[in-house]
């Protein structure tokens, strides 16, 4: 008997603190992988509409983000963590947020800024305050204003139809020309390559919610806020040809609500915080769309609310069970 215990003791027993069992189905990597899967409908629409221009942007950003990750982790002398797929997610989202005609170097610069300044200077994954892809995009949007502004989306020489048109938001703002809602919904219009199809964003976003990778509160709050504000404006001006549904399906609203605002690292932790965050994004989007010089405001709205996240987390500290 003593033999048995001694022999087996040496052979098998590991000691560790409790708990001893773990849910290994959901890991950081599986969550990132789910984001990539959720982006597939958007990706396919982008490739279908913009052809090689879309493929070019996505491949450039993906490669540059992975290279940036490798470079900066090396500079920080940390173990390389490409397998956690977070750099890949940044790369794909960044690529999808660029205009199709943008020159190749914009994607590369945006990627390095996204990974380097957006993420690494804060201490890497999990420590960043701002959504890395949006930091990269904001940088190139300001640095290469003419390539990234409304005019940058239009390239009259391209064979792809939609690229010869202004984006719907710009067309309406400048010429008062509304677009067919069905074109907006299916993605038959110009815009950043990932944002054009509302249908694709809804399918991918739905997958994220079902897999519980994105929290439902953020898209719900963003969309509800835009619905209320745009709907209110609509009611006050019933003859307007730019309806609440145009607001919903145009620009980056759906893409942003599902794929960008829901980045867990840069959004609040608690349900209540997520509602505040989403409402803030919705209000800012509407403010920027309506009153600023930019036709679209999802990127700035998300970045501004990212900055508020630590504060929101502090406001919405949950009430411990049994306290008042």
């Amino acid at each position, binding site marked *: 008997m003593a033999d048995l215990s001694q022999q087996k003791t040496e052979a098998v027993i*590991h000691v560790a603190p409790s708990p001893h069992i773990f849910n290994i189905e959901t890991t950081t990597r599986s969550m990132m992988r789910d984001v990539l899967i959720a982006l597939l409908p958007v990706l396919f629409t982008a490739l279908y509409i913009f052809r090689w221009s879309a493929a070019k942007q996505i491949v450039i950003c993906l490669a540059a983000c992975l290279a940036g990750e490798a470079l900066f982790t090396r500079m920080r002398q940390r173990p390389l963590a490409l397998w956690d797929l977070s750099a890949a997610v940044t790369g794909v989202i960044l690529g999808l947020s660029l205009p199709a005609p943008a020159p190749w170097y914009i994607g590369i610069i945006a990627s390095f800024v996204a990974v380097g300044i957006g993420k690494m200077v804060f201490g890497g994954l999990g420590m960043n305050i701002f959504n890395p892809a949006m930091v990269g995009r904001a940088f190139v949007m300001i640095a290469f204003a003419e390539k990234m502004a409304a005019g940058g989306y239009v390239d009259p020489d391209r064979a792809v139809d939609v690229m010869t048109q202004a984006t719907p938001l710009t067309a309406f703002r400048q010429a008062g020309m509304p677009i067919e809602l069905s074109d907006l919904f299916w993605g038959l219009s110009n815009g950043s390559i990932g944002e054009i199809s509302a249908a694709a964003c809804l399918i991918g976003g739905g997958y994220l919610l079902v897999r519980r990778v994105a929290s439902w509160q953020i898209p719900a709050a963003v969309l509800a806020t835009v619905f209320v504000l745009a709907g209110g404006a609509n009611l006050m001006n019933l003859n307007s040809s730019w309806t609440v549904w145009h607001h919903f399906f145009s620009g980056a609203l759906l893409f942003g609500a599902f794929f960008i605002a829901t980045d867990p690292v840069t959004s609040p932790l608690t349900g209540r915080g997520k509602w505040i965050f989403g409402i803030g994004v919705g209000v800012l989007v509407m403010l920027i769309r309506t009153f600023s010089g930019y036709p679209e405001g999802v990127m700035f709205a998300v970045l501004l609310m990212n900055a508020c996240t630590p504060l929101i987390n502090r406001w919405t500290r949950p009430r411990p069970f*049994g*306290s008042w």
Partner: protein
Amino acid sequence: MRLQQVFTSYRPTKPPPGPGTFPHGVHPPERKDFSLDAPIEVVPPPKTLKLPLLQHVGQPCTPLVKPKQQVAFGDMIARGEAFISASLHAPLNGVIGKTAMTTLPNGRHVEAIVLNGEGEQITGQALWDDIFGGEWPKKQYQAIEPQVVSDAIHAAGIVGLGGAAFPTHVKILPSDKKPIHTLIVNGCECEPYLTTDYRMMVEIPDAIVSGALLASRAVGASRTFIGVESNKLEAVEALRLAAAGAGIQIAVLKTKYPQGSEKHLIKGILNREVPLGGLPADVGVTMTNVATVAAVARAVVRRKPLTHRVISVTGGGIVKPKNLLVPIGISMADIIEYCGGLKKTAARIVAGGPMMGFAVSSLDRPITKGTSGITVLSHEEIKKETETVCVRCGRCVDACPMNLVPTKLAMASRLKDLNLARQYSIMACFECGSCAYVCPAALPLVQLIRSGKAMVVREGKK
């Protein structure tokens, strides 16, 4: 016939006021089937027992015996002299050996009385009959003085058998300061794998009901509930039969971890929240475990001390999973040998269940009054991802039954920022393990919070 009995005996009364569950929590795989249908077996008496003088919360007890002294089954061998302490009784006929040091499952080194079995022992069915057999009265308790119950519990050395091992006479006590209106008997057994309480509810529901009535009488409660999770309907049925007409209500709760936590069971049954840092008595409740009330019944009705307990031996790493009636102080090695030994795949031996139990480094640890089982986990079962970094996904926040922010507490502990830790109520954490179970980054959240709590306690002592 049996079904008919159920229908006639079960008259639906007013349902418990609570929602039957609590917010947050997790659903780990239950894996109770290993030992679910194994009837409780009586383990043959081992040659030697090691009885730690401190196997309960509170002060150690004082030995009453010397080496080479003869003792008989049921003799008191150490007395709990302090108010929060519990006496120790001989589970065998035998001779006292040399006092030894032993290690409790939680890693604490304590002195222990060694008892070598000698002479004739009661074993098998006779032992079962002595402990749990026979009739258990369920009436005429109004004639028993509450203090008599409490004294009998004290004399029997009963502690909470659910795992906390808090001396029971301190809880089951008539009190003028904090009037108790409800007694809740905890039969949730929300820990995965373990089936100890389940088997007791199925096999000896009468002893449980009898003990619950006695405890209820002792604390002066006007209502008595036995809380059971919805995955143990056979136990619910057995208890309803046994409790028919006794004035005890069986509350069925949603199966969710940690429903068996004191505070969350009160929430589920009564919809009351025990104040942060408070006790169930603050909301007029006393709670005790089903195995504990069975021991109470034996102590009051038969005047017999706590010498044995039921444990589950379960998990994917044990050859023959079983439920056993074992003498307190038996070594884990004896039990594992009785259960056919360890499989080659065995990787971790846990005293208790996999969520809150302690992994032991050696099999010479004794079973204490508070050990509810031995879970032997295989490599497959303890699989864990490589630790990465927190991406603030908030899953730990959604899991925490205390509604804390585990990732924040873990970070505060890591940075030794005790003010931040206190601000986020670190001491409210009872280490249920839900956060670490769900964490996609495989962070050791509970362990970090544990160290943070220890730092806060140390600072408070300065």
